[in-house]
């Protein structure tokens, strides 16, 4: 669906995107996560042709974006819906008119029976049928974003781009919006690309995620793998391990992913090897439908080799923390 290869982009002398390559499949929910200023929004804007790039290639649905302009670009954008952090609704239009506006851009009358049906169906999907005549100023942030989602879907796009779409919302509203996006993805088969700095967003709905830092993709994969077994860049982004681990002996971090999440590894480790150790840190997180966890145990130096051997044998992922 979206194929990005060696994409580079400069603003003046500053390199915003450095050799970015990624591949987004049809029908998936793909996350692009990183700190503010990492270049993720620029990348998203490139996908919609709102921003140009200096070198590399960016193909959406088989078309190179830099090769289209004018009418072709307008027709291309029709197939890509976008929602924004600040919703970007027209203040002076009511909810209905906001959702119908893209239809008008494409020649439809806003009150024609087809337009009406389309807009009302979408307002039903986002749960705002009672707010048809409200102005954006009368809505809450979550409701505004729902209107923006309906507006982004009104032209039947193949891809929905979300630019920090939940960053201005409270946690509960964020959750509601995310489950709406999940529904749109599964029911309508729309590919969703989400740019965010919120880990919760990625954890809750993304099937794959790219971690972008200083314009470079430093990690890519399933969120459960990226966040449960973070590399150094991600650790830094997440704020790292709390500084409460014992300074003596050996700290070993175990990762419980997928099939091992439910195994009683710890009690077996103690019983089978006949050793004592302390559990010094742990967390459990939800990723879409999966539960993933990580635990740090503190063992004696002399037990290290036996523990390592046992964990390998049990196919538990682990590493020694320094």
């Amino acid at each position, binding site marked *: 669906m979206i194929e990005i290869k060696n994409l580079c982009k400069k603003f003046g002398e500053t390199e915003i995107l450095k050799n970015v390559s990624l591949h987004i499949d049809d029908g998936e929910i793909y996350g692009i996560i990183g700190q503010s200023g990492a270049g993720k929004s620029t990348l998203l804007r490139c996908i*919609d042709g*709102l921003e140009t790039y200096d070198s590399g290639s960016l193909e959406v649905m088989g078309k190179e974006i830099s090769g289209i302009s004018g009418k072709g*670009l*307008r*027709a*291309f*954008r*029709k197939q*890509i*819906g*976008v929602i*924004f952090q*600040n919703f*970007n*609704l*027209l*203040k*002076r*239009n009511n909810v209905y008119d906001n959702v119908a*506006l*893209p239809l*008008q*851009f*494409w020649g439809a009358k806003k009150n024609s029976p087809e337009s009406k049906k389309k807009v009302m169906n979408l307002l039903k999907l986002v749960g705002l049928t009672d707010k048809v005549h409200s102005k954006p100023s009368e809505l809450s942030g979550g409701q505004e974003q729902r209107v*923006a989602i309906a*507006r982004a879907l009104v*032209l039947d796009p193949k891809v929905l781009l979300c630019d920090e779409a939940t960053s201005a919302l409270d946690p509960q509203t964020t959750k509601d919006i995310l489950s709406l996006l999940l529904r749109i993805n599964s029911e309508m088969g729309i590919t969703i690309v989400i740019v965010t700095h919120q880990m919760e967003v990625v954890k809750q709905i993304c099937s794959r995620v790219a971690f972008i830092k200083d314009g470079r993709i430093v990690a890519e994969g399933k969120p459960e793998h990226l966040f449960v077994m973070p590399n150094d860049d991600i650790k830094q982004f997440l704020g790292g391990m709390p500084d409460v681990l014992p300074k003596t002996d050996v700290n070993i971090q175990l990762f419980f992913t997928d099939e091992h999440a439910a195994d009683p590894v710890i009690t077996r480790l103690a019983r089978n090897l006949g050793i004592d150790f302390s559990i010094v840190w742990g967390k459990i997180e939800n990723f879409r439908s999966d539960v993933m966890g990580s635990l740090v145990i503190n063992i004696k130096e002399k037990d290290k080799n036996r523990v390592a051997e046992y964990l390998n044998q049990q196919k538990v992922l682990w590493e020694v923390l320094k």
Partner: protein
Amino acid sequence: MMGTILQALGETLYMVGISTLLSVVIGFIPAVILTITAKDGLHPNKAVYGVLDFLVNVFRSFPFIILMIIIIPFTRLVAGRAIGTTAAIVPLTVSAIPFVARVMESALRSVDPGVIEAAKSFGASDAQIIFRVYMKESVPSVLAGITLTVINLVGYSAMGGALGAGGLGDVAIRYGYQEYRIDYLIVTSLVLIVFVQLVQYIGNKLYDFSL
């Protein structure tokens, strides 16, 4: 006295009304061009913006009374004569156009750039963005700008009296100033005060209503 003042009020309304209408319609064109070619506009163009920006500033720097005299040949060309109420509409309009252009430019540019970007993302054409987004979203600020223009023109029209334009300013100068009729001065001033208050009040109401 009342008859004279009523007639003068009619002349002022006529001059201000027509010149507001004309200057808003004509001034909107440079305003739109300035908005489009500005650094953050749809099609940034330093040269076009620079030239237009300069011209607007030049015309705005003329004191009205000087401008009125300088463009007398132009006034004669357009209105057929250089003196009189109708003729005064020409310099009033000319002086208000750059003012309107500036006020409308700032009204249009106050539209949230995010909304413009959203419109682009749905494949809107430039014309659609200008007419359906810029103009629609900026209505409150445009109305505030028109209110400002009307009040400005009321002030200018009083100066027009100096070139025989008629109107309240003319009455104030002829009767009040030249014939030492203090009552004329007071009444014309009161009428102007009430008029300006009324324009501002209506402007504010329209602004609130259009939000």
